[in-house]
């Protein structure tokens, strides 16, 4: 700790990721004396991101300095690919200059966040592991580290997806394999020119692209999962998010599956000649609204991944982390001001979340992941194959009457696809759409 004299703070934030830093900053900006604790020797060392941070949320926290953050490339171009073993059907969008998200390395980005917080007067304690929370008369009143007790009026838990502390004090239950995605990733080095050529990025200033891959793992019993790829300045990230439940069920190793994706004829030319510079793995909490923990208790709040704030469909998580952290910090500062740290005051945090996109979205998306998961085979195998067959006819110029080809496709579709399966596919699709819109 930088100021060893001080052992009592208004607010202690555990975990220096986007959520923790945002919480600490909001608390400090609200006038609270704030300590930010991180277990690794520098922020970001334990963290992994598929690729990109969302910039609208970052702007809200750093309205003047967000552009100085260590961005690699602005992800203005997105492509979703339905893969079969040897083909790809894509849908793409491109918003040149949009700057809605940017690829980052957590080791650099989180470090930048912490530096900004320190500049504004947040105390920072790296290499500090919190073992327990201190409890006095039903109130959380500080933390027990490996070395000492540090007291505070409010503790904010931003200790990530595994949040041992939130479980310790009964805010949260253990996640089930079904609610958790394991993401494995490789950072692959290529030259800047090669990346710009392969992703058609020439001439755009720091322009970048993201790709998502559905299917293509060459398995009959494919796990529910999604491949992702992001461009960096002179690297690519390539990873896979996989349902833990399916990994268990089908006895699959995540690293082997990533190898399969790398060998796919559409993916392999993109990474050809690259050099693996870092392998990484991280969990994503995807239980959503139904698995939300208690968000507060006397003297404590929980934010970011620790609270399970993730919308897997849109890859949103960093934005939830930044904004939920901000609300937690603001609430803590308010509690300090009125000197009431009870759950009655801290309830304000939940109100703020309810009035924001965070709980609104999580609520309207509460069945989406589960629904899609129930149609894993349709998503991972059946429809990619169907799309591929359709375009084989559409673009094939096969010197066969189109009418015969399309009729054949239609007959195969009806024959291979029982009406029951089709019914459930349509029902699930409509259920997802209406769930979000209603």
């Amino acid at each position, binding site marked *: 700790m930088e100021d060893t004299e001080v052992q009592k703070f208004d607010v202690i934030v555990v975990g220096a990721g986007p959520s923790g830093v945002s919480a600490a900053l909001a608390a400090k900006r609200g006038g609270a004396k704030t300590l930010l604790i991180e277990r690794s020797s520098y922020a*970001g060392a334990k963290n992994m991101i598929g690729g990109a941070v969302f910039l609208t949320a970052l702007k809200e926290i750093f309205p003047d300095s967000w552009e100085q953050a260590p961005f690699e490339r602005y992800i203005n171009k997105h492509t979703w690919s339905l893969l079969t073993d040897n083909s790809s059907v894509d849908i793409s969008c491109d918003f040149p200059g949009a700057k809605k998200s940017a690829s980052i*390395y*957590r080791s650099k980005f989180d470090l930048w966040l912490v530096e900004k917080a320190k500049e504004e007067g947040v105390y920072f304690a790296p290499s500090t592991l919190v073992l327990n929370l201190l409890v006095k008369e039903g109130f959380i009143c500080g933390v027990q580290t*490996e070395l000492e007790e540090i007291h505070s009026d409010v503790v904010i838990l931003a200790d990530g997806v595994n949040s041992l502390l939130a479980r310790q004090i009964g805010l949260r239950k253990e996640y089930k394999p079904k609610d958790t995605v394991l993401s494995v*990733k490789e950072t692959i080095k290529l030259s800047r020119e090669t990346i710009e050529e392969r992703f058609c990025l020439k001439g755009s200033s720091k322009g970048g692209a993201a790709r998502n891959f559905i299917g293509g793992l060459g398995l009959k019993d494919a796990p529910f999962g999604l491949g992702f790829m992001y461009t960096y300045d002179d690297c690519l990230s390539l990873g896979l998010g996989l349902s833990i439940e399916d990994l268990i069920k089908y006895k699959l190793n995540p690293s082997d599956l990533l190898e399969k994706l790398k*060998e796919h004829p559409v993916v392999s030319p993109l990474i050809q000649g690259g050099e*693996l510079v*870092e392998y990484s793995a991280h969990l994503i909490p995807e239980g959503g609204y139904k698995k939300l923990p208690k968000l507060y208790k006397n003297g404590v709040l929980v934010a970011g991944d620790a609270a399970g704030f993730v919308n897997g469909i849109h890859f949103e998580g960093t934005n939830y982390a930044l904004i939920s952290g901000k609300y937690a910090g603001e609430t803590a500062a308010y509690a300090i001001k009125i000197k009431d740290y009870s759950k009655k005051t801290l309830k304000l945090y939940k109100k703020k979340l309810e009035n924001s996109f965070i709980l609104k979205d999580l609520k309207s998306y509460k069945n989406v992941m589960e629904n899609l998961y129930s149609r894993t085979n349709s998503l991972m195998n059946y429809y990619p194959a169907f799309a591929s067959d359709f375009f084989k006819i559409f673009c094939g110029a096969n010197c066969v009457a189109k009418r015969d080809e399309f009729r054949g496709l239609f007959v195969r579709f009806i024959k291979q696809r029982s009406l029951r399966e089709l019914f459930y596919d349509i029902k699930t699709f409509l259920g997802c759409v209406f769930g979000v819109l209603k």
Partner: protein
Amino acid sequence: MSEENIKKKTIEDKLTTIKYNCSSKPHLAADEQKCRNCENRCCTYICPAGVYSYDENQNIINVEYENCLECGACRIACPYNAIGWEYPRAGHGVIYKQS
């Protein structure tokens, strides 16, 4: 650079790209009794770093905690809650630089 550079990597190959500050104190522990009776031992295939392996001679799970990426997948996956899972001591464990 050839294609082979990036293709067909084993977990062992991949782990050589990662920096660690290893602690002498293990932060993971498998419950010998529970693991002996486990029919599936999903930890041996689900772990992205291959930390867990089954030793048939001794009938125990070997835990190479030094390779752990601290993701927590084993903890969630184990149906018998048989894995003692803590964070490594402060400043120890995996140190990602480009992730």
